[in-house]
Every structure is written in C-alpha cells, then in structure tokens.
C-alpha cells in the first residue's frame, strides 16, 4: 500500500461508458407479464419452477406411500409408479433446479451483482421465460393424454422408452421429448444473456476477480449448460425420429410382443453416451450455482472473507471443465473396455479434489468466524454437512468394482438425493431466506423459518440415511413393490414405512415454507436496504426492492472484492464493494474525525 493520498475521482474517472438503453414498458401487462426486466423474469421463472416442483414433490409422496405401505393404499398401479418416478426425477432435476438456479437466481442476481441495469438482451430474456413456460405446460399436459406420461425413467433409455409395454408410449414420451427440446431452446436464449452480461455489462471496477462467487458459480454453470444441453437436444431429436419416422439411430433389431419390429441395427449405447454427456455436467449445472451462493451466504453471515477466494474460482472452473470427461461412470454396468473404465474412474476421483478444496474452504471460512446463526446461515451449514455426506458415497460409486453391486439399488438413490437433491435444495432455501428481503423488502418469518429448517434437515436425513442400508441389502430402485423377495429382510419393510412417514413430515415443512413466503410479502418485518450488512452490490441499491434499472442515476463504481468483512483496523465490520478506499474509516482515525480527504497506511 502506498503513501499517496487518493481521492475518489482519481481512482475512478467519471463514467464514460455507453449506458445500456433500457426498455420502458408502458402498460401493466408490459411491466408484469411481457416483462423484459430481469428481476420480473426471475420471479416468473422462480414461481413456475417452484410450482412444478411441488408437483414433483407430490409424486414422490405417492410413490412413498406405495413403498411404505404396499398393500394399504392402492392409490397407484405399477405403471403409475414408473410414470411418477420418471416425472419426479425429470421435473426435479431440470424443470425445478436448473430453471430455478439459472433462470431464477441467475436473472435476479447477475445484473445486480455485476452492477448492470439489466441483462444485455432483455427481449431474448423475456422469450426465454415464455418458452420455458411452454415446455412446462407441455410436460404437464402429458398427465392428461391417452396413456399418460412416459414411464421410462428420467434417463429415457431406449429401446424400452419407445417400445410397447412401457407406459406413455402413445403420447407421453413424445410430449416429454418435445418439452425437453423446448426447454433447451429457451434455456439457450437465457444462457446467452447470462454469459454475455457477465462478460460485457460489469460496472466500472468490477474486474473478474471482484465478482462474488455467486456470479462465478452461475456463470460457469451456464457455460456448462450451453455446451452440455446440446447432447440432450441431439438425443431427443434422434429419438423422436426413431419413434415417429421409424429410423434406427438407437433402436436395435428386436422382437417385441412376439413380433419382429421394423427397427434394425441401432445402438442403445449411443444414446447412453449422448445422454450422460449431458447428464453428468447437469449435476454440476445444479451444483455450481449452489456452491457459489453458499460461499457468499457463509461469508456474509460468518462476517469473514471467504477462505481462498482465488482457489474457489479455479475450483469452480476446474470442476466445470473436468465434468465433461467423466460421463461414462454412469455406464459401468453397460459394459466397456476395462481401460475406459479405468480412465473414467480416475477422472471421477480427480474431480473430487477441487470439490474437496471447496469443502475445506467453506469450513475454514466458518472457523473463528463471528457466526450469526440466521436462517440462511443454518441452511448453508446444513448444506455443507449434507454435501460432504453425499460426496463421500460418490467416491464409493466412482469405483467400478464397488459400483457394480450397488448400481440400481437404493444406495444410488440415497447418494444422488443427498448430493444433488437435498444439498442444492438446502441452498435454494438458504438463498431464498437470504435474498427475500431484497426481493420483497421484508424478512421471512424467523420462527416459521426455524421450524422449516429443522423439519427439513432432520426429515431428509431420516429419509435418506436408512436408504443406504436398503441399498446394501440389495433393494433395487424403480420397483413398485418387493413382495416376498428372499434377500429382503422383514425389518427393511419397517424401514420403508418409517421413511415414508419422514417424507410426509418433510413435505409438511415445505407447506410451512410456502405459507411463510406468501404471508411475508405483505406481513413480514420490514428489512431495509441491507439487512445482513452485506458487501455485494445488490444490497447497495437505492430502493428495496430495486426498481427498473436497478441502480440510481449513476451506476456504482467498484473498488474492492466482495469479501471485505472484519477488515483489520477498519471501524465498520463490513465495507461494501462500492466504497472507495478514501471513504473507509479506520479505528485510529475515527476519533480525530478529520473528514474523508484521505488515508495513509
């Protein structure tokens, strides 16, 4: 640090960048329905995603009722079970988590956090949401068509996904494929926005290394999604052709219902490659935004700079890059050259290294922090626990020999629910509790929040911990009922019943949460502009909630990274990103109140 006295103008010359031309809606509909404001689009995305997510939750309860009490309820038949597994999985992974993290949080947070007025292509952004909504509606429509939704499993493996005998072969699978294709098109429109906005619309002083980790996470996840979704796109198109026009990309010659089908020579393995080329990065598309957001939430509520910021950035980008070369660990059971198996097992284990670095850094951020145990913080810490848990079982499954007996059992169900179901959902909750005061101007209720947190955390552990044991016992996944199978001990049925009860408790907790969200819009405690005393730009807006254009007349100028908490010597325990060095008050100066002409240190 030098001895030169800086004054603010020298540090940041007056704005000379071309301001973004903002679109100004004139009507109510233009403002709230056909809106081009990223904040409104974000809320549209989030509400739609949560709504369809509740459908997926309801489906899981129906499945759990069947599994826990096989002969008591008879609400669903075996076909329904398969259909519900499929819709539950697909909705949760794609239509809820991907859409919520990127379309919801991405839209809301990117422009605000980088100091932009809006996304760079607002019109495209608007279309993106409406295409997404179309995709969701088409998916929902498949519940009402003849034959119902597809029951092929969320992996949609051919040949069974388009062969007679699988539920939803008439219309369900077609609607599923069309819906996915639309989703990808819509996402690509949004994704272009997120990437270009981060690259091009950052305010003055917001160098890449001053971006909050939230933005890094969403940005990298978007890059992954833009490159990985094409694999799903390509496979959906080819499967549609197989189904509708009778081509044989994926469909081998086979005898179905006693008759030779017209298909010949296609390769189901080809589909698996394409699907998992998308499917594995998809895990990180969901995880990276969660990583980013949880880093910021931990740092803010622990009043401590994130530990190893630069390492965190590299870990995010490194994980992203590596995630493209591990996909075949989902195909160990399909069989492959042992050398490939070795290769993919190795890359899978290597990816654990940057992931572990992130976990250490989170823990070290908490270490000796001045922890404020707010609701977002509780969820964030819950995430760290759960993620470690799910990550460890992932190491088991990454090894070919361990994976073979465990594949397609409840061990896998427990693993991926922990790592990509519960963990990101906990971050979603943390993020909603954290940013809700900015979005609405009011806090969510604290007591209800605590109830929600403990019921959700303990409940999900009660659901998924026992499932590991069921997996060891060999209980296969995607089964409607187990009957009197020899390997299944009697107690495992009791365990299943207990899991179902826990699932209902968790679901009830979500109702508390939804109630809290709706009630607090008008009834919550007013929050002010920066209730958590956070440093990032979204908390420094002139109005809360931020208005069209986000910031006041002048865009904020950024002088520092996002983690100036408890800066040694500084009087305040946090220094927002847009506070120039000359305006920072230091403890020794605070007494002789000289005024802000400059500081030397």
């Amino acid at each position, binding site marked *: *640090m*030098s001895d030169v006295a*800086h004054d603010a103008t020298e*540090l*940041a*010359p007056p704005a*000379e*960048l*071309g301001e973004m*031309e903002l679109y100004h809606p004139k009507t109510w509909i233009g403002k709230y329905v056909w809106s081009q404001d990223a904040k409104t689009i974000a809320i549209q995305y989030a509400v739609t995603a949560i709504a369809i997510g509740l459908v997926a939750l309801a489906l899981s309860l129906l499945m759990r009722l069947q599994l826990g009490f096989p002969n008591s309820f008879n609400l669903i038949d075996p076909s329904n079970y398969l259909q519900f597994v499929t819709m539950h999985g697909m909705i949760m992974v794609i239509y809820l988590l991907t859409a919520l993290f990127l379309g919801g949080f991405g839209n809301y947070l990117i422009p605000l956090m980088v100091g932009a007025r809006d996304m*760079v*292509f607002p019109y495209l952004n608007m279309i993106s949401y409406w295409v997404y909504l179309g995709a969701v509606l088409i998916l929902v429509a498949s519940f009402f068509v003849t034959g119902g939704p597809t029951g092929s499993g969320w992996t949609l493996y051919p040949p069974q996904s388009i062969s007679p005998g699988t539920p939803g072969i008439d219309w369900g699978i077609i609607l599923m494929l069309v819906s996915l294709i639309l989703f990808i098109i819509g996402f690509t429109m949004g*994704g*272009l926005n997120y*990437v270009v906005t981060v690259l*091009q*619309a*950052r305010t*003055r*002083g*917001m*160098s*890449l*290394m*001053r971006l909050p980790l939230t933005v890094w996470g969403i940005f990298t996840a978007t*890059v992954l999604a*833009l*490159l*990985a979704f*094409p*694999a799903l796109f*390509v496979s959906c*198109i*080819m499967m549609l*052709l197989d189904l509708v*026009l009778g*081509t*044989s*990309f994926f469909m081998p010659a086979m005898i179905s219902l006693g008759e030779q089908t017209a298909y*010949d*020579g*296609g*390769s189901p393995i*080809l589909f698996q490659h*394409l699907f998992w*080329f998308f499917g594995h990065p998809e895990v990180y598309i969901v995880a990276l935004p969660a990583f980013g957001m949880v880093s910021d939430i931990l740092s803010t509520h622990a009043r401590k700079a994130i530990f190893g*910021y*630069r390492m965190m*950035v*590299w870990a995010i*980008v490194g994980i992203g*890059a590596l995630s*493209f*070369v591990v996909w075949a660990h989902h195909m160990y059971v399909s069989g492959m050259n042992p050398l490939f198996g070795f290769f993919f097992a190795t890359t899978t284990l290597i990816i654990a290294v940057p992931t572990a670095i992130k976990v250490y850094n989170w823990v070290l951020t908490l270490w000796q922090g001045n922890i404020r145990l707010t609701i977002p913080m509780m969820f964030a810490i819950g995430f760290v626990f759960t993620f470690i848990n799910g990550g460890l079982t992932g190491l088991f499954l990454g090894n070919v020999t361990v994976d073979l007996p465990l594949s397609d059992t409840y061990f896998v169900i427990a693993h991926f629910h922990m790592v990509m179901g519960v963990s990101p959902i906990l971050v979603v909750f943390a993020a909603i509790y954290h940013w809700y005061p900015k979005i609405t101007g009011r806090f969510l209720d604290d007591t209800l929040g605590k109830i929600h947190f403990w019921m959700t955390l303990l409940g999900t552990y009660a659901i998924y911990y026992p499932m590991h044991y069921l997996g060891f016992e060999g209980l296969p996944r995607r089964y409607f009922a187990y009957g009197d199978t020899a390997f299944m001990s009697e107690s495992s049925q009791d365990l299943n019943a207990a899991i179902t009860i826990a699932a209902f408790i968790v679901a009830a907790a979500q109702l508390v949460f939804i109630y809290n969200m709706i009630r607090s819009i008008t009834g919550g405690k007013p929050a002010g502009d920066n209730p958590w005393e956070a440093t990032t730009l979204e908390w420094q807006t002139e109005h809360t909630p931020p208005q069209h254009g986000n910031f006041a007349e002048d865009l904020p100028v*950024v*002088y*520092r*990274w996002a983690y*100036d908490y408890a800066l040694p010597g500084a009087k305040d325990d946090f220094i927002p990103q847009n506070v120039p*060095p000359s305006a920072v008050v230091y403890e020794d100066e605070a007494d002789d109140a000289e005024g802000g002409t400059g500081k030397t240190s």
Partner: protein
Amino acid sequence: MTFTVIIMVFIMGGVVWWTVRQTIGTTPWTAEESTLEINDIGFVSSQDGIRTHSMKIGLGVFLAVATSVFALFVSAYLIRMELSDWRPLAEPTLLWANTALLVLSSICLQWGVISGRRNEFESMARGLLGGGVFAIAFLVGQLMAWDELAAAGMYLNTNPANTFFYLLTAIHGLHLLGGVYVWGTTMIRTRSPADNERVKLSVELCAAYWHFLLVIWLVLFALLSST
C-alpha cells in the same frame, strides 16, 4: 465420442486458460492496488458501445453452442457408422454445386464487411444482397438434392447413412435459414441511410455466422462423402 471430447477439450481449455489469465497475479483482496486499472478492465470502452460488443460476444457464444450440437451429431455419426447395417450413400453430385454457392455467399458477405469498414455503404448493401441470394440458392439446391435422392428410392429410413444425410443437411439448413431471417430484416434496414451503422454491425455478424456455417458444411460434406 472422441470427436466431441476433443472439441470440448478445446472449448473448455479456452475457458480455463482465459480465467487463469484473467485471474492469476491479481490480488482482489487489496482495494488500492487495482483501482488504478479501473479504466481498463471490467467495462466496455465508450467507442464500441455496450451493444455492439455484446452482439459480437453473444454471437460467439452461440457459435460455441452450435459447435457443440454439430460435434455431437458427428460423434453419433461416427459411432453409428461402425455398426454392421451401414450402407454408404452415393451423394448427389449436385452437392458440389451447392457448396460452390455457399462459398460464393460467404465471399459476398465478406465483401460487404470490407466495404462497410470503408464506409462504402452501397457496395456493402450489394454484398449483403448477394450473400443472401446465394444462401437461398444453396438452400434450394439442398432441397433438390433431397428430391434427387428420394427419386432414386433413397428415403429417410432406407438406411442409417441416409437418415444421417437427411438429418445433418436439415439441421445445417435450419441454421442457415435462421441466418436468412436475420438477413431479411437487415435487408429492410438497408433502405434507410440513418441505419447504416446498425446495418454494418448486422453485416459483420451475418458474415461471421455464414463463415461458420460454411466451415461446418465443409466438415459435414467431407464426412458424408468420405464414408
């Protein structure tokens, strides 16, 4: 999948290289140090304007997405080709003429770009016109090639080689059709001189997109006719 993996390694390698270059040696946790550079990083300089720059980067990102789509199709092609029922297709010779049309189309647009840079807007408009007309001619030519194949009894599902031929040409054609739509809106704009600067930007974007699709077509054409 090797083909796609190689492409991905390049793209992701680029991303990693870019981040490392942007981030190594910076110390974000010191406020003073980097404030002096505040002018050079983190915002767009006024000459270019946020929009021009964003459109170019946006197109670049989209091309990366399209690269991924085509790379995956090529990978699928290479995998499917190995299987026993593959009967190579004799591609219509018309494709050579079509390729020439697409090359001409790219040349015209490039001419438009060069004229635009010299602020010779009339010749820019002519280049643009030529580019679009040749592109449409290419698309018509592709349809005729389909016709020719169908007339010879080579339908979509006669053989996987045929399926891929129709599929790849269709996907490529649809991409070009999207370009032609943008070309159309730009053509309308050329009529008012006030829009010259915007047209210039559009011509540059179109040209970049066209060159990209030309390269893709050459790769696809080589792949289709060599197997």
